[in-house]
């Protein structure tokens, strides 16, 4: 077995018929610093090669040099639009590694915050997806609602984007006294907003024509590429880790898992659109059942998980967020690996992208819902 020679550069041979266009790393529709090398035949994309890593900061190496608690703030910077969920996934992995029990009230708090975060994340996605298609107004509508969620988070954690609020073994502090009333008021206010989005986006004939039947991802390819989250559900596979591999207390709540049929952009859009309503249901149930009591479990003063390793996964707004942690018994993780959902989801773009127009390419990329902080780590 001779090691293969790594290919470093490829020759970009332009012909009279085809040309190469660099979409990104500075481009309004790549949602950050992604670079797509497009081979265009007129306006039709015949080949797409994603180049990632512009935001790479060796997150995993940093994690190996920090104690388990010190890693929490770094997880915020992964998927910076769903920081609560990254915290959740990470502390859950460490708790599973150590076999810690989390108090009831803390579990409910976690679910409430995580589901609010899912709504906020889907709102950003919806707004920016509207921008990709040239609909500017939905962006402002979505940000109006997200602002209120951020206000709630601010009242809880003092932060508006990178919360670092979950702790190994529980939560650092209780909800402020006004939170429950504020949260209920927000939900009551938010529910009538969803039909507003439908009026601007879902029911608009131009929007429908722009997304239906495009960027199809069939079930076989989806599983082959280990696609997860709304993208997988859009392809018609009813798979949600909250239901299929329950963690925390998700098995106590009633909620539906929306699935698509064709696996096109429209299905991914509808899955996220309906998920927002489902998350509202979960938060309402959790608020009703929120028990009093402790919020921090019994945690040793020094977090030193036993020797071993664990792969723990949660359903983040973008898909399966996994943490693979190897412990050597010390205060720092020996190896800390993040299975980023959008890193994996993006890898299918060279398969579903070609054959579409540049304008559809933008829509397909938008429907994957990438966050470069997580892709590049």
């Amino acid at each position, binding site marked *: *077995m001779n090691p293969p020679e790594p290919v470093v550069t490829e020759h970009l041979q332009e012909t009279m018929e085809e040309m190469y266009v660099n979409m990104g790393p500075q481009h309004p529709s790549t949602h950050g610093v992604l670079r797509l090398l497009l081979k265009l035949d007129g306006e039709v994309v015949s080949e797409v090669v994603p180049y990632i890593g512009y935001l790479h900061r060796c997150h995993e190496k940093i994690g190996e040099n920090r104690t388990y608690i010190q890693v929490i703030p770094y997880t915020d910077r992964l998927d910076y639009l769903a920081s609560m969920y990254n915290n959740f996934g990470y502390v859950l992995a460490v708790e599973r590694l150590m076999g810690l029990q989390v108090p009831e009230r803390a579990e409910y708090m976690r679910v409430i915050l995580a589901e609010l975060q899912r709504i906020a994340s889907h709102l950003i996605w919806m707004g920016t997806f509207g921008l990709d298609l040239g609909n500017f107004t939905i962006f402002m509508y979505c940000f109006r609602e997200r602002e209120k969620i951020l206000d709630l988070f601010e009242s809880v954690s003092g932060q508006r984007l990178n919360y670092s609020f979950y702790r190994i073994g529980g939560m650092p502090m209780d909800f402020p006294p006004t939170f429950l009333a504020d949260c209920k008021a927000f939900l009551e206010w938010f529910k009538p907003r969803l039909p507003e989005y439908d009026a601007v986006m879902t029911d608009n004939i131009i929007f429908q024509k722009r997304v239906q039947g495009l960027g199809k991802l069939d079930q076989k390819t989806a599983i*082959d590429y280990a696609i997860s989250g709304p993208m997988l559900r859009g392809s018609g596979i009813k798979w949600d880790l909250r239901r299929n591999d329950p963690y925390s207390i998700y098995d106590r709540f009633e909620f539906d898992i929306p699935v698509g049929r064709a696996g096109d952009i429209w299905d991914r859009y509808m899955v996220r659109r309906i998920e927002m309503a489902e998350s509202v249901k979960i938060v309402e149930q959790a608020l009703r059942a929120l028990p009093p009591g402790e919020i921090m479990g019994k945690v040793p003063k020094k977090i030193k998980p036993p020797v071993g*390793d664990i792969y723990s996964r949660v359903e983040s707004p973008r898909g*399966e967020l996994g943490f*693979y942690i190897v412990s050597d018994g010390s205060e720092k993780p020996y190896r800390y690996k993040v299975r980023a959902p959008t890193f994996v989801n993006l890898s299918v773009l060279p398969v579903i992208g070609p054959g579409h127009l540049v304008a559809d390419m933008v829509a397909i990329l938008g429907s994957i819902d990438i966050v470069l902080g997580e892709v590049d780590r």
Partner: protein
Amino acid sequence: MTPEEVIQAIRSQFCEAVKASEVKGVEARMDIDRGKSYEILAGLKGMGFDYLNCLSSVDRIASGELEAVYNLSSLKEPTKALVRVRVPREDPVIRSVVSLWSTADWHEREAYDLMGIRFDGHPDLRRILTSEDWVGHPLRKDYQDERLVPYEPA
């Protein structure tokens, strides 16, 4: 298929190649020999593990080895599998599993980029997160870089 059955089936087929195995909850864990890694993983795929969740790489510097970890699961059954393959640092080559799970493409490129494990049979083994002209593999424990400032807790 329970994890015990998975281990039994693999052991009966590749008795020598499975160095160690344990069951943890619904997860079947195996340490396997690198010579048979592709065959064993293909066998696991045949048992219904059609979903490669994650492919990680670990630097086992104490024993002078690098380790690739495959997390497998299925969308139909709750059983999971965790497969470890160790390779010596001097000759870090494993057979690529891209032909089994296409998702391994980027995972293997990442493992090559950051840990320096080479995957034989990978269609396009390039650096993915660092730039093309990067020297070294940053996630190795002995990676040295003059720009790297060691963290000293106060």
